[in-house]
């Protein structure tokens, strides 16, 4: 086994626990998407080209017939803007990647792939083979599990009968809990939620997402405390 395939396997093995946790979530996504009216092929196409779990759940929640192009593209930018910061950070450590390879690599970026790649940077340095071991195995598991969910989901009827329409909210709540750090998180979430629910009741369309998001971000900026940042800087390697 060459050095490259060894690095590729090392990446795939490192990400294995994440793959096991991701597969059922992907099956759930596929099921919800076909219930919303997408064909299994469309589910696969979205998973294969967009390849962004959180955005895909948000998009399917907003899905209508016909799907609103401008709103969903805008939503994609807003939900994924965190990737700009992740690649800005990881980009500095990709010295072993050629120019074009970097651009291919970035297609496979996810929150999890980023976290594992940054960890590898600190431990041994990041090779392209290791990174693609993470990214390609995640892509294969995500796309095949989404398709599996889509095929299973075709046999199900009215989603509300199973509480499936609440499944989005339940999944998002679980992801949100992972973002909790201190009381400021609570204030940000309270403002975002209050503004979003109010706008939803008063304004037609899905603009409540933007309104709530901006309210939360504004509150986070207003609550920013320099003392906390200095404290964090001392503990976190940056």
């Amino acid at each position: 086994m060459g050095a490259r395939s060894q690095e590729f396997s090392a990446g795939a093995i490192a990400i294995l626990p994440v793959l096991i946790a991701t597969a059922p979530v992907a099956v759930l996504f596929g099921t919800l998407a076909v219930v919303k009216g997408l064909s299994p092929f469309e589910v696969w196409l979205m998973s294969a080209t967009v390849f962004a779990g959180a955005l895909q759940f948000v998009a399917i929640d907003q899905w209508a017939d016909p799907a609103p192009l401008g709103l969903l593209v805008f939503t994609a930018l807003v939900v994924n803007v965190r990737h700009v910061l992740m690649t800005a950070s990881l980009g500095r450590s990709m010295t072993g990647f050629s120019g074009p390879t970097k651009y291919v690599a970035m297609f496979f970026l996810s929150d999890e792939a980023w976290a594992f790649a940054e960890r590898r940077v600190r431990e041994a340095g990041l090779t392209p083979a290791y990174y693609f071991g993470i990214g390609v195995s995640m892509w294969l598991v995500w796309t095949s599990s989404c398709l599996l969910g889509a095929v299973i989901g075709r046999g199900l009827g009215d989603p509300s009968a199973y509480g499936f329409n609440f499944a989005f909210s339940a999944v998002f709540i679980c992801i949100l809990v992972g973002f909790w750090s201190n009381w400021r998180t609570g204030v940000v979430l309270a403002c975002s939620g209050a503004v979003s629910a109010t706008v939803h009741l008063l304004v037609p369309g899905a603009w409540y997402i933007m309104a709530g998001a901006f309210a939360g971000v504004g509150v986070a900026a207003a609550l920013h405390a320099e003392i906390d940042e200095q404290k964090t800087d001392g503990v976190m390697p940056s």
Partner: protein
Amino acid sequence: MSLDTNTALVIIGMALATYLTRIAGLWLTQLAGVKGRARSAMDALPPAVLMAVIAPTVLATGLAETIAACITVIAAFRLPLLVAAAAGVASVVALRTLIG
């Protein structure tokens, strides 16, 4: 195999927008060092977006959804994602039957 033209356009649009956020960082490596108020605002973006997405369902649909959301929060602090989400869905079905 069926593919609607509008659906295909939306998927391609979302894919391009997502890819743009993934490569923009390669041009903006100085953003990684952003600190202070701007950093706090950017860190708050993902949770603020997620909260805004679920708020109408959780806060403005009915008592069953609101209570089930609280149960999901408690479950999510203790259990893996899929188990906690399943507990939330099961409780909303039970609560809808009870409350009506």
